[in-house]
């Protein structure tokens, strides 16, 4: 962005003349920079005026409003995220299943605060067990919802997972075709159409979640769906270079599942009052950017009130009995490590969530590091290989 003025960058963003990664960086910058946000607002208004003055205004037929109004009254579109508009007549799935998921996640997260004897590290306070799939996590503790509601929840999650699996398979098929060079992308219009549709469906599936999630996590999901859409746009150009980034995208989408599910747990109002407002979660950060859907990944959610980090971990490696994974914090300024504990063996070759109690002296921008060490390793700093670590903070 150095060689372009702020307004040029804003216009590039608004006119879709940015690469997906640059878009993400820009969006982060706007969130942090009021001056840039102000320029964006001004540029957006300029383009609106341009659109306004570029053609005579015409009115849609009266049927359009009738259709919108009918949709709203018949509950065939989502509600605003506000209680005032909710109806008591037959709750649709997009109300039921986020609510049910929220309740169940709250119950799951409750487990974080129960000390476990099986937990090796001195600082780790709890674990919620292993989640081999999102579905299992959500249905494992059914105490508050009806069987019918649970079934709805299972069905919707299954659809979501099918979408992701189908997307992954389509991508694999496409890559094979590209490798063979016998099939030109121009012959795959139907498949591309199906992919676009899948992304649309995926986005729709998450909209209910987005309305319920905390702002921080909403933005996270929104950003990832945006990235996915960008890749679809790229895919639509018939160019062999389009294969670049496909696997990043699949990885993003797979990771999205966990984020979305966790975000329901942070929804205000769904958390038992004794845990306060949304568990006090104030932010999230990635420990890495998975390059493929099979790579390990981790997301950390900071609970400032409890001085805890909730980690959602995925695709962790299968280790021999001679090895184990250690969680550390690293003070960026002093370059010193503090051992938090050892990850439970149930997470080896699996995915799951844990909550870690951080030392009191942990600085706000401390880095989280997961390393692979010899079993029984004790030391002041890691000696083994780094598996995951907090990414560098964004440049100012």
């Amino acid at each position, binding site marked *: 962005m150095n060689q372009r003025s702020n307004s040029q960058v804003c216009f590039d963003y608004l006119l879709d003349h940015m690469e997906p990664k640059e878009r993400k960086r820009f969006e982060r910058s706007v969130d942090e920079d009021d001056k840039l946000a102000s320029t964006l607002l001004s540029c957006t*208004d300029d383009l609106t005026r341009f659109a306004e*003055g570029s053609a005579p205004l015409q009115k849609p037929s009266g049927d359009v409003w009738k259709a919108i109004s009918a949709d709203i009254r018949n509950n065939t579109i989502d509600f605003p995220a506000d209680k005032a508009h909710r109806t008591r007549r037959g709750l649709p799935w997009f109300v039921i299943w986020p609510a049910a998921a929220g309740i169940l996640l709250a119950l799951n997260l409750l487990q974080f605060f129960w000390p476990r004897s099986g937990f090796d590290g001195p600082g780790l306070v709890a674990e919620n067990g292993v989640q081999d799939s999102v579905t299992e996590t959500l249905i494992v503790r059914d105490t508050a919802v009806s069987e019918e509601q649970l079934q709805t929840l299972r069905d919707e999650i299954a659809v979501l997972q099918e979408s992701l699996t189908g997307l992954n398979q389509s991508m694999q098929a496409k890559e094979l075709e590209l490798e063979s060079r016998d099939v030109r992308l121009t012959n795959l219009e139907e498949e591309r159409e199906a992919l676009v549709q899948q992304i649309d469906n995926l986005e729709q599936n998450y909209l209910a979640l987005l309305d319920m999630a905390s702002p921080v996590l909403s933005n996270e999901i929104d950003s990832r769906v945006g990235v996915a859409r960008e890749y679809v746009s790229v895919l639509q150009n018939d160019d062999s270079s389009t294969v670049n980034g496909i696997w990043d995208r699949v990885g993003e989408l797979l990771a999205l599942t966990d984020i979305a599910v966790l975000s329901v747990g942070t929804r205000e109002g769904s958390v038992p009052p004794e845990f306060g407002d949304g568990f006090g979660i104030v932010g999230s950060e990635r420990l890495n950017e998975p390059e493929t859907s099979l790579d390990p990944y981790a997301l950390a959610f900071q609970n400032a009130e409890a001085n805890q980090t909730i980690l959602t971990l995925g695709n962790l490696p299968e280790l021999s009995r001679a090895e184990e994974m250690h969680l550390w914090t690293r003070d960026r300024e002093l370059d010193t490590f503090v051992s938090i504990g050892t990850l439970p063996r149930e997470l080896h070759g699996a995915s799951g969530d844990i909550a870690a109690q951080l030392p009191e002296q942990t600085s706000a921008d401390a880095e989280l590091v997961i390393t692979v060490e010899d079993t029984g390793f004790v030391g002041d700093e890691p000696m083994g290989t780094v598996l995951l670590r907090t990414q560098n903070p964004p440049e100012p």
Partner: protein
Amino acid sequence: MRRPSFYSPKPEKLVGQILEDKDPKLEWEATLSQVANGSEPALRRLYAEFSPLVYTIALRVLNDRREAEEITQDVFTKVWRLASRYDKRKASVKSWIVMMARSASIDKLRKRSRRPDTDNRHTYDVFDYPLQDVYDQKSPAFTKAAALVREKLESLRPEYRTCLELAYFKGYSQKEIAAAMNLPEGTAKTYVRRGLQKLRQLFNSA
């Protein structure tokens, strides 16, 4: 979901009216906050004010009345659904709605035609409509605004205008604009940049 800070208590006045002593932007923000609270009349006011612009943009992009109406419907159902997520730091309510309209229209255009229609492409002139059409609106404030903008846009060089049209209404990349206008890519890029700079000058001098 937490509300942005502007969600203060509801104003007493009918906020859909554009009054000289009120800032329209604030009025529409208040209206949108009512939509976020589930007010259908507030959505109706937004629709009455902005649906012509949404429909016109969709029509300009898609050149199909039925599809443009579908987009208009989609945009306002999105407004209904996503009102609570509006961020006033990044766009005015009007621009937020307009950007949704543009984005949805271009998505639809891309779905309809997977690749740019280079064979049948023609240049677009923003002024190929009679000016009096702009006045065919019930809201005097809205009409006046549109006419003033149009007047200003007439001072843009035609090649700049065309580049901006292709970028805005067709979602073309700079490379595609160059191909459409039979220009070197660098020249097309320059035209887009200068056009946008000029646009800012025009509106900032208002």
